[in-house]
């Protein structure tokens, strides 16, 4: 039997040769578990079942997230969420969700291979993003835990405020990841941050 094909992250090698961490960081968080969940938010029984299973209530307020141990529930719409969790958890998560939602109308889709997370951190992170994003991401209006689906440099993205460094997680479709990473590096250069310019898309990480 042939050995399994190694997994390839959209742009694995971007982690190498970073500037000093206190100046800024740009790296991929590859292979995380991304599960899209849709259910009727008026179905209080289903919401309760999910809360019991995840240990956290699905956020019902637009543009917010809710965290429990190792899992982030992200609001995507009035009946739609993204569950973001550790690597290699998607099968277990999906089957647990399926069990919890038996008898309810719901949709559970593992989209882990379809998108990835880019993390941008550092004192100039707001300025770097502002060059391609119309939203005000200042912590006074977009505090840690806030999320927004919007355009970044004309690419559809899901932005999540992580901490007050500030740090942002930028979720993009995998085919957009090299472009968005290249754009972020270019934008960061204006603020004296020189992230490696030779990210090699497709580098094998696992």
């Amino acid at each position, binding site marked *: 039997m042939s050995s399994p094909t190694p997994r390839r992250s959209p742009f694995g090698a971007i982690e190498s040769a970073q500037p000093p961490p206190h100046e800024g960081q740009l790296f991929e968080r590859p292979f995380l578990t991304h599960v899209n969940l849709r259910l009727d938010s008026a179905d209080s029984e289903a919401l309760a079942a999910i809360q019991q299973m995840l240990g956290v209530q699905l956020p019902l307020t637009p*543009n917010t997230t809710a965290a429990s141990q190792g899992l982030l529930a992200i609001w*995507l*719409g*009035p009946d739609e969420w993204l569950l973001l969790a550790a690597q290699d958890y998607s099968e277990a998560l999906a089957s647990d969700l399926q069990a919890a939602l038996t008898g309810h109308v719901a949709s559970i889709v593992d989209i882990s291979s379809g998108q990835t997370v880019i993390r941008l951190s550092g004192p100039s992170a707001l300025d770097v993003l502002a060059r391609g994003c119309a*939203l005000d991401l200042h912590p006074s209006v977009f505090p840690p835990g806030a999320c927004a*689906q*919007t*355009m970044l440099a004309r690419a*559809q993205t899901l932005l999540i405020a992580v901490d007050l460094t500030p740090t942002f997680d930028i979720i993009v479709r995998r085919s957009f990841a090299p472009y968005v990473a290249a754009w972020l590096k270019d934008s960061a250069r204006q603020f004296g941050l020189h992230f490696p310019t030779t990210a090699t898309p497709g580098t094998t990480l696992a």
Partner: protein
Amino acid sequence: MLLIPCPWCGPREDDEFTFGGEADIPRPADPAALTDEQWADYLFMRDNRRGHHREQWYHTAGCRRWFIVERDTVTNEILGASTYGDSQ
């Protein structure tokens, strides 16, 4: 640029949206009972109002929901936004 108030996500620039034309045009309950003219009227004919206009927008790059915006077609002033549930 228009600043469109998505009822869920809040105000966003119009780049994030897709226009869906005039609102409040119910789909005929029994299309097969209509004449071709009546069906064409439902599919294609719109008022093209000057001034206050209720219209449909889709938040393509955001929450991916349809909703209703009230806009003055002369001044482009946005007068309000609502979900389909609100207007029923």
